[in-house]
Structure formats: structure tokens, C-alpha cells
């Protein structure tokens, strides 16, 4: 399974006219996207000849995809790793210590879910959200020191964190129905 951002695609940072770095402010990315969109959006070419419209559409698609990739820190971090040839596969392993911790928390969540203990689920969710926030701060530090291995390890961990948070949502949603 390949990532959509493979070699033939233009560089996402270039498309947005941004420097290829992790510590970009969300507002800065958003402003760059708006400015480029004003030039490239298909609406600007609504009455252009068909060939030009096709080109405009694909340029606009590439820009939107670049924004989608870069707007959130995790996507941006994964993309930066890919640019230097480090990819994260579908089945990457966590280190044994972390994996035990994750398994334990999942068990707790499953129990809370079975018992329909909404408050407990919310507490677990809040704990995990805090951990995620700490991880993102750590990610910033790791990029500053260009620790590629550390970044990769952290990003693998974040996949588990995000999956866990999705499960919390699903549990809370199901409870509402």
C-alpha cells in the first residue's frame, strides 16, 4: 500500500510557498493556503477553454491535498520524514514497555464501555488527550534536534494514541444512541 504523496507529486511545501519545516504556525499555513487558493481555484477559470480548466482543476487538487497533508502537526511530521526517505508502514511495532501500557489502557476502555460508564470513558479520553498534547510538544523538540529515530518512534506511538481516541469517541457515540 503506497502513500498518495509518492515521488511524482510536486512538493507540498512548495505548493503552499512555505519552508519545509515542522514548526509552522497553523495560521501561517492557513493564510498561505488562502492566498494560493485565490489564484488557483477552479472558479477563477470557469470561463477558460476546456484544456485550461482541466489543468486548473488538477493544480487546485494538488494544492488542496498539500494543505490536507500539512495542516495538522502529525501529517506534517510524517510528510517531512517521507521527504528524507523514512516511511512509517502499516504494521510498525511499538517497544514492549509502551505496548504493555497501551494494552492496559485499552482493556480499561473496553471494561468501561461494557459497563456503560460514561464518566470513566471521558476520563480515559481526557488522559489520552493530555498525553497527545505532551507528545506534540516532544515532537517539536525532536525536530529541533533532528532526531529522526526519535521522531519515527513518537509518530508510531501517536498512531496508537489516535486510534485509542477514535475508540473513545465511538464508545461515547454508541452510548448516545
Amino acid at each position, binding site marked *: 500500500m503506497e502513500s498518495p504523496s509518492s515521488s511524482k507529486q510536486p512538493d507540498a511545501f512548495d505548493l503552499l510557498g512555505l519552508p519545509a519545516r515542522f514548526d509552522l504556525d497553523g495560521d501561517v499555513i*492557513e493564510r498561505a493556503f488562502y492566498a494560493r487558493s485565490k489564484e488557483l*481555484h477552479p472558479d477563477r477559470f470557469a470561463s477558460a477553454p476546456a484544456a485550461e480548466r482541466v489543468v486548473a482543476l488538477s493544480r487546485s487538487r494538488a494544492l488542496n491535498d498539500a494543505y490536507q497533508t500539512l495542516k495538522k502537526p502529525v501529517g506534517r511530521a510524517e510528510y517531512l520524514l517521507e521527504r528524507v526517505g523514512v516511511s512509517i508502514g502499516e504494521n510498525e511495532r511499538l517497544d514492549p514497555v509502551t505496548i504493555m501500557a497501551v494494552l492496559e489502557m485499552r482493556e480499561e476502555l473496553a471494561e468501561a464501555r461494557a459497563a456503560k460508564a460514561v464518566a470513566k470513558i471521558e476520563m480515559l479520553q481526557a488522559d489520552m488527550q493530555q498525553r497527545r498534547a505532551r507528545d506534540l510538544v516532544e515532537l517539536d523538540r525532536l525536530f529541533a534536534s533532528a532526531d529522526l529515530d526519535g521522531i519515527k518512534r513518537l509518530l508510531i506511538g501517536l498512531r496508537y494514541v489516535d486510534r485509542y481516541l477514535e475508540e473513545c469517541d465511538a464508545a461515547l*457515540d454508541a452510548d448516545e444512541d
Partner: protein
Amino acid sequence: MLLQISEPGEATIKEACKQRVIGIDLGTTNSLVAWVTDGAPVVIGEDPIVPSVVYYGPDNTILVGREAAKRGLDSPRETLASVKRLIGRNLSDVEGVRNLLPYELVGDDRAVRVVVGGREVSPVEVSAEILKALKLRAEAALGGTIEGVVITVPAYFDDAQRQATRDAGRLAGLEVMRLMAEPTAAAVAYGLDKGSQGTYAVFDLGGGTFDISILKLVDGVFEVKATGGDSALGGDDLDRSIATAVVGTLAHGSDLAHRKHVAAVVAEARRVKEALTLAETALYKIQGAERQISRADLREYAKPLLDRCAKACRRVLKDAELTKDQLDGVILVGGSTRSPVVREFVAELFGRQPLSDLDPDQVVALGAAVQADVLGGGEQQVTLLDVIPLSLGVEMMGGIVEKLIHRNTTIPSGATQTFATYADNQTGFVIHVVQGERETADACRSLATFTLKGVPPMIAGMARVEITFLVDADGLLKVMAKELTTGIETSIEVKPSYGLTDEEVERMLTESFDFAETDLAMRNLLTERVEGDRILNATRGAFASDAASADHLLDDDVRAAGVVAMQDLERAMAGEDHFKIRAMVEALDLATKPFAQKRMNRAVEAQLHGLTLEEAESQVSH
């Protein structure tokens, strides 16, 4: 000739040259059409609200709008309301509303159809009738053929519902420039009217659909951050909950529950609901039985529906990674938000008073008109960045969905992924395209299934198929598949099937040519009248500016001939004969030709001296 010199009456000429484009809000209960004139969007018609009702009478008579709605109580089975709930849907999708609609539905797992007057019509055809009526209304008001239209759809409409809406437009003989999400349209209208900047939630509760969108408005850019909703939840449902609750308590309740009374029972519920917008209590009356209904009762009946809205609102805030305190405002859209019960609910949910300065019935059509103007080459500087409301993916082995494009991705968008074969010597690859958030394919909306043939026989996992999803600015999907391993490229392009094949649409279009002749005569007449208006204005303007200037180019005999020709043209324009109007336009052109020639010469001369005509004229007159 006169046209090329655009000095006096410039605005009028520009207006006449601009493309005639409109925005249409095709609603569940009501529809409206709007356009941009003098830089501002306005709705068309003295009574701009056209009920989305189509009556199929004997002898192929078809009525649309208020005339159709009047037949609802006497001919419930021939009077089709709320068809938007059926468009792009199959029979099992609409099971929930089936027994509540007074007309008869048939169909299969592909599409639902309505049985009316002994024949079956598709919801696409019924919607096309509404669109045709709106188109005629616009042509009469704008005085000419409509060259393009933006039609709004609920943000939460899936691919099948969007495709079907687009086809309805095509069937109505309209050039659909864009499908636009309703809450986005509303935000555009608000943004331009109020100069709003910041992050807004648009709460759009219509007759049959609910959308909640969060948008950021910055310097003419409207970015949808997240959207959500329920494409089968609206004011109609509230009418039905009221009806169900009340009828059960009436003496003849069990008689009234019969199918033939549904229309009357629900219509009375709607009347009561609307009465409760202003009054604290209202009387539900039907066939001699009656019951007092209070706002508190209404609140109770509405609760299950509003709880569903609340859930969608919480989810969309989460998707946008925002809390309600970070919003700059909440905008109310849709007729159902007139109800104080709904307003109280929104105020409580978001912890602030919602905005409703613009008419919630009109605001969507106004925004669509602005977008039509942008696409038609108008002067509005608006950039819309909308999103896809539901994830798009393919079914994998074991029925699991692999998402290629996630919900809330800005459109247009695209994604490519490579898949491997799963069996030895597999020569075909079945691709099942689905839309939705659930993990398994059977819980998502099935959009299309197609087979890529000609995969070379190899051991499992060796052959690789690349699947590409492309979503355009309407939110419509195209899927391409390509076999990679051997370098042999097999590619196929599919349009998701939502019930009508391209052939069926073509057939309907051909059939509609039977009626095309009268449409055409009307169109010709309107076109010529506009042309006549344009040349009259241009001539009058040129004459007036000549009279004001010191150096007259207009000879007396040319002026006299011109005046006569103008009178002839005006008379022809009052008539119905488009050939005659054409002839008089040409006669006027001929009569004023010497004058036009002189003006041209002066313009050319002035340009050679680097002056505009205005400057040249003012120089002469001083």
C-alpha cells in the same frame, strides 16, 4: 456598432452583455431562484417562494408550485411534495418515510420511483419539473435565456444525491455550473451582506434535511472547516411527530391513522406548528375532533429530532477542532429555524443568541446567486473552499472499508492507492466504491461496483492495481483503476450509479424535446426583446451625449430616421413576433449607421492621441 463605444449608458450595456446566470435553492418544501443585479443578490418574483410540489393531472397536465400545492388535499396521490427526500435514493433508503408520504413508491435496490396517474416517474424527473418552473420564472424576469445555474444541495448529500440533482438540472435544460452546499451558500450571503469575518457555525434546518457547517471567513475566502448533518431530518419530521402524537389522543384517532388521511393530518400539524411561531397555544382541528397544543407540547414532540441535531453539532465542532466558545457567531438558515422552539434550542446548545438578520428562507438562494455571478464572470471576489461531507473508499477483503478520501477534505481533491491481488491467478479485480464513515462496506452507502478485467494471472499479491479517486468542485466522484505490474495499462472510468443510467437521462431528454418547440419560441422572443432593449438604450445614450457635446456628429436627418426606427422597434417589442423584433433591430442599426461610423472614427482618432472618448468630447466642448 454603437456597442463598441461604451460611454453613456455603460452600466446598462454591461448588464446586457453579462451572462444571464442564476442561483437556485431547490428545497424539500420550497424552492427559490435569485440573481445578482447592480452588484447585489436578489430573489426573483413578487412572491419568491415556490412550493416544491408537482401535480400530475389527467391529460398530462403538470402544475408546479402554489397551483400544485392546492391540489394536495383533494388529490394526494397525484400531488408530489418532498421528493427531495427521495432523490438519489433506493427503496430501502426511504423505508422510513414511505408510509408517511401520501403517494405511492415503487423501485428496487437501485432507485425509487413514484407511481402517479398509472405511470412511474423518477424523483429526478419530478425535481426537473420544479427546476423548469424556476427557469421560466427567471427567464421572464431577466428577459432572456438562462445561460448557467448554481443549484444548492444539502452539505450532507452523498455522491448519489448530488449526481441525481445535477441530472435533474440537465433534464430541465439548465447548464449546471456548480452544485453548492446550502450552508456554504448561506455563509456567502451573510459574509457579503454583513462584511462578517471570523469563524461561524451555520445551522440549517430545512423541510427535510439538516446541515451543520463550520466556516472561516477571511477576505473573500470562505473555507468550510467541517460539515455534518442528516440528509433525512427536517421540519417535515416535526410535522409528522406532531401528527402522530396528536392523532393518537383524538376520539377518531384510529380512523385518522389510515393512509388516505395522512396528507390532511400532517397538513394540519404543519399549520399548528407554524401558528405556534407567534402564539403560545394553537388548536389542532380535524374532522370534528380538536386538541389544544402548547409550545411546551411542541418542545416535547421536537426533542428527539433536536437531540439528533445536537449530536451532529457536537461532532462537527470536534471535527473542526473547535469549541463553541471559539465561534464568532451562529447563523440560522432554513424555514424550520423560524420556530421559537428551534431557536431556543440553538441558543442553549451554542451558548449564544443565533443570527437571523437575513431571511432564513431566502439566504441560500442569495448565496447561490453570488456564486453563479462569480462563475458567470461577474465582479464578486469570492473564493469558496468547500469539503466532502462523507469519506470515500473501497471495500477490501472481508468487507472492511479502506478510505481513500476522508470526510472534511477540501474539494477538488484526489487520492491514489495501490492494491494487490488476493488469490492466485486472479484475472479480475472487483472494485466496490462506498461512501460513509462506518468501518464495514455494508454499513456504508454503496456507490458503484465495477470489475477491472485483464489482470495477468500471477500468484496472489503479485499483480497490483492502482485505484485513483478524483472529486471535483461539485463534490462528485470519478474512479479510475489501472493494472500496474506488467506495464499493460487497463483503465476504466466509472460514474457512480445512483439509479439513473446515462442512457435513461438521454432518453428523458429526447422525450422532453416534444415540449421543446413551445419553450424555444418563448426563448427566441425573450432573447430578441433583450437585444432590442440593449440597442434602444445604447442609441438613446449616444444621441443624448451627442446633444450635450459642442461638436455634433449627428445629422438632423439621421436623428429623425433613428427616432422613427426606435418607435418601430418599441412597437415590435410589445408584440410576440421575434422575427419582427429582429428585423426592427436591424433597421435601427442601419438607420443610425452614418452616426455610428462618425463616432467610431472619433474614438479611433482620440485613441491615436491617447485620449478616451470622454476626454476627446470634453476637449471639443470646451
